[in-house]
């Protein structure tokens, strides 16, 4: 399992290759990449700042992946989340799940994202033409998480 919280960007291909390096039994790699959109709730977003709770973040991300591993048959996983200042089209988050079969990998990747969205201590602040604003948590994210319980 690789968990990283970093300001640097990541390269998806490199992360996939790193996951594959030691295993020949991986049949499915499902990846999620979250990007900064130029529009949120009707306002143009020119910049985004991501704050987090350093000691808690990586621990919580690892907890989420461990929960996914207990639930599905997974070979390995990578989670990278960026913090700091980001611009539209920048990559924010990467979740990769490696499994023998695609069903497990798809379910686990979506599970990790749904929990990351509602449990991992990151906060987004947007810069729009009207100034800065903290992004509000979405009920739809809570609903997405509830599907798994």
């Amino acid at each position, binding site marked *: 399992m690789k968990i990283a919280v970093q300001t640097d960007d990541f390269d998806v291909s490199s992360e996939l290759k790193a996951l594959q390096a030691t295993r020949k039994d991986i049949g499915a790699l499902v990846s999620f990449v*979250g990007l900064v959109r130029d529009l949120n709730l009707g306002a143009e977003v020119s910049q985004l700042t*991501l*704050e*987090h*709770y350093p*000691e*808690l973040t990586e*621990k*919580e991300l690892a907890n989420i992946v461990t929960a996914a591993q207990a639930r599905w048959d997974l070979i390995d996983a990578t989670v990278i*989340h960026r913090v700091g200042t980001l611009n539209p089209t920048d990559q*924010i*988050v990467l979740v990769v799940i490696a499994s023998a079969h695609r069903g497990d990998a798809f379910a686990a990747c979506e599970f990790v*994202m749904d929990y*990351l*969205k*509602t*449990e*991992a*201590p*990151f*906060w*987004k*602040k947007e810069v729009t033409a009207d100034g800065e604003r*903290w*992004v*509000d*948590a979405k009920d739809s994210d809570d609903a997405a998480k509830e599907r798994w319980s």
Partner: protein
Amino acid sequence: MKITVLYFARLKETLKYSTEEIDLTEFMANEGIKVISVLKLKAFLAKRGDQWGKMLMGKLKVRAAINHELVDDHAEIHNGDEVGFFPPVTGG
């Protein structure tokens, strides 16, 4: 009993605190309590004034962690603990 309290995101900005050391000895003696829960600590902080009450006991669903473990309002805080308060998360 001394603890460290951390505030994040909207809380940090509104309360203008990111971290503070708090001595709860007197408060706990006055209240006649030997253990303090997260909820009790929130109530203690809320008494500091308008923004504090609004942020910690208002409609914002503030979450807490003790020593980097997510906890609910009933969790007990012990001497030397680090308590983090933060608004609903919005990462990903």
